[in-house]
């Protein structure tokens, strides 16, 4: 590809240097932001082939470039805009997670509600790890 730079180290004039290993290994390899209510749909993403709506607050994110194994790290979050109080509430629990190298299952739940799953207006998933 054009514009290729091969470098092992990036050095700032005053702030020090960092090896490009940090950049390669530390960058998210997949992410998605999607509407988890109504008819779900991705707003924006990277390395995501599709989503699966498994049920209430229960989704899969599928990857285009699989990870090298099922041991990649993931972070998920979300929020919903409560119609009654018009408050934006965070959804911080994820109660159902399974993963293979090509997909991760995301279960969203509002803390302390006892609800089994909750559809978020915004659901996000960020994935770090080694790609296949």
């Amino acid at each position: 590809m054009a514009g290729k730079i091969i470098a092992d180290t990036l050095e700032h004039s005053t702030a020090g240097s960092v090896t490009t290993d940090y950049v390669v290994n530390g960058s998210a390899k997949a992410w998605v932001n999607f509407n988890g209510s109504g008819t779900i749909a991705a707003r924006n993403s990277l390395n995501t082939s599709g989503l699966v709506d498994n049920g209430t607050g229960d989704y899969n994110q599928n990857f285009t470039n699989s990870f090298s194994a099922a041991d990649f790290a993931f972070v998920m979050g979300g929020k919903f805009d409560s119609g009654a109080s018009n408050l934006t509430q965070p959804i911080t629990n994820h109660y159902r997670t399974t993963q293979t190298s090509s997909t991760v299952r995301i279960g969203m739940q509002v803390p302390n509600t006892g609800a089994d799953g909750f559809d978020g207006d915004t659901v996000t998933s960020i994935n770090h790890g080694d790609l296949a």
Partner: protein
Amino acid sequence: MQTPSFQGTHLFDRLCWAKENLDGVQSDYRVVYENSIDECAKILVPDPNWMACALQGGILPPVWVYHELAKDEAQPDFKKHTRGYLLHTTEPMPAMTEEEAIEYLIMKDVPQSVWQTWDEGNRPKMVICKKEQLPQQRTWRNAWRISDELAA
């Protein structure tokens, strides 16, 4: 825009090129399927950036590559992929129509036990529809099933 010659380029680099150069395509197609009698119907939704890659051509690997990787991962002694190079070195797929892209995505992301036998049995296990045909409210979402009317 012409796709660069990507064979041998890491798939992730191709996806980054696509994200920078292609506009996402929101498909109206949805794939509804059932793969367990104990679970409600599931709905596969294509990603807009992925759909843009499929329509553009020259970016995505053939779907059989994913099947080969899935076979490897199903082995009991699987630790990590050793044939990931198939994603990067196999000649990419040419441009697809939206309908062909949905077929590809079904074969990639729907369990094979569903799409290989979708019309066997008393009722279909999978239906391709437009999003307008789905319920607009998620009331009783965990009880959704494919309509028996489609079995006729």
